[in-house]
């Protein structure tokens, strides 16, 4: 039971619960992100939240509000500059997000603050502290324990989970409409869906998810959680609902394995989570039944063995 030894510590339980919720949220979103082709957008927004966090700290606002506003500013400014100049969109995005991030660094260097840049950049999952209690509240007649999970919503971890569940619920309810908007905006328009509103809604949910996830994995690696699980699932199935289930499954499993690995290796937890997700992707890339490399190789070999079958 040595392998599961970390589970007995409250800070590890907190880390596992929070990490799993964040991973599941990002995994749901990642299915939309990769269909929409927003990988770079996600990367940009996650960096652009920095000045908002520092300014919110200076103004005494909740940090998440500042982060949300400056993430939105990044995407709005990019859209404006792209429409009014001849520079390509990906270049504009690069210019804007690095500018905001650099401004955040300069601001931070001028504040004598206890705002830990390290925690914002790399996440602070193991330091989140206990925010819930798991209690046995009685024994049912079948001699099974009845558990109750008390969340402390005054604490950061509890709030993250609350917001995470709300965002995920909204995504699940609207998934059909959002999917159509990502896949085929013209078709969506024909069906009289509010395409512009839904696109901005998705963008706002993306920003919100990034802000929520910062606590767990940090600015730098949150983008991995927003791309990799969706891509892994995309290699396994052609159906969107299944893709979401697989995406959430691999993301949560990778998070649990990553946190356990980071405990045993004594290494950075966010990196371990991301690497576990990357390994899941690498395995799918090789072995996925239909869209994997080996499967397509086998198909190609069979086709060349019986060339008449093709023509």
């Amino acid at each position, binding site marked *: 039971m040595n392998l599961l030894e970390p589970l007995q510590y409250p800070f590890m339980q907190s880390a596992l619960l929070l990490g799993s919720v964040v991973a599941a949220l990002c995994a749901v979103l990642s299915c939309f992100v*990769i269909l929409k*082709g927003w*990988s*770079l957008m*996600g*990367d940009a927004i996650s*960096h652009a939240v920095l000045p908002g966090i520092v300014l919110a700290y200076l103004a005494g606002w909740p940090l998440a509000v500042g982060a949300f506003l400056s993430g939105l500013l990044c995407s709005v400014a990019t859209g404006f*500059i792209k429409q*009014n*100049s*001849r*520079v*390509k969109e*990906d*270049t*504009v*995005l*690069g*210019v*804007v997000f*690095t*500018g905001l*991030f*650099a*401004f*955040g*660094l*300069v601001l*931070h*260097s*001028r504040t004598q603050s206890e705002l830990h840049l390290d925690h914002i*950049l*790399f996440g602070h999952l193991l330091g989140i502290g206990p925010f819930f209690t798991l209690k046995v509240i009685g024994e049912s007649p079948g001699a099974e324990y009845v558990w109750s999970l008390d969340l402390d919503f005054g604490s950061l971890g509890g709030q993250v989970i609350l917001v995470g569940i709300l965002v995920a619920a909204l995504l699940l309810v609207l998934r059909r409409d959002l999917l159509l908007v990502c896949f085929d905006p013209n078709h969506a328009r024909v069906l009289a869906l509010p395409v512009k509103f839904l696109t901005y809604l998705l963008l706002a949910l993306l920003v919100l998810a990034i802000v929520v996830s910062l606590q767990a994995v940090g600015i*730098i*690696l949150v*983008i*991995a959680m927003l*791309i*990799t699980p*969706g*891509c892994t699932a*995309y*290699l396994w199935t052609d159906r969107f609902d299944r893709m979401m289930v697989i995406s959430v499954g691999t993301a949560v499993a990778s998070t649990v394995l990553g946190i356990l690995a980071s405990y045993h*290796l*004594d*290494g*950075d937890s*966010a*990196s*371990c989570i*991301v*690497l576990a997700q*990357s390994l899941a*992707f690498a395995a799918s*890339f090789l072995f996925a039944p239909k*869209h*994997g*490399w080996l499967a*397509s190789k086998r198909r190609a070999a069979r086709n060349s063995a019986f060339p008449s079958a093709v023509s």
Partner: protein
Amino acid sequence: MPDFLTPFHYDYMLRAIWVSALVGGVCGFLSSFITLKGWSLMGDALSHAVVPGVALAHLLKLPFALGAFVAGLLASGAMALIKAKSRIREDASIGIVFTSFFALGLLLISLNPAGVDRKTIIFGNLLGIPDKEVWQLVIISAVTLLVVGLKWRDLMLFCFDPNQARTIGLRTGLLHLTLLTLLSATAVAALQTVGAILVVAMLITPGATAYLLTDRFGVMLWISAGLGVLTSVLGAYGSYFFNGATGGCIVTLQTLFFLAAFLFAPKHGLLSARRRARINLEAKIPS
């Protein structure tokens, strides 16, 4: 003695200023090609992907440029493989590969606390850069400038119109590899001055700014290189007053220059476009 001259009295500040000017200039030259080619995401990806190479090189006591270079090539190979052999889109495959490499780099650093500092890689270490690393930067810059100087016309054609380049008998595969190699090399150099996260700004912002100011590629090259040098010198100097946030200062300045060009550029700026639109409108209204 006035306050604003104090940075010049320190050797480490003088060295930081000339080293950053050199790197800024080289990145500026290259950024013209990168913006034309539309490789912003590639620049971002490579600058993150070199990190495990740097960490391993420190472990094995090899020159950091060598490790970074190998990691950069491995990453671009992996991106090409995923794109060619699966149905994942290019931008997503770039994202997966560079975050994996970066995570591996951070893990290696966290496993070996005595080695290279995490902060050095993320924010650069211009003010405390050791002598032998300065030499590596000088060599990287010299080689990059030499290659760009000899081959800039071929590279320009390749960036503008690869088909045309192929038609007139240029070896586009080789040019692609050359540009990728130069990109990795300069990403490593810029890693030292502004850190892994802001390298991409050095590689695209001067080029994008210059692109708003001129229509001629030769002029664009010089403007972007000049901007790279100017912002790096001012940023390194300014970082003396900003608690050593060198990368932040340099890139903030570059973004301000870009915004100024976006608003006020004589032909492609926002204000002149608005003025033109108004004049056109007035010309159309019959009096």
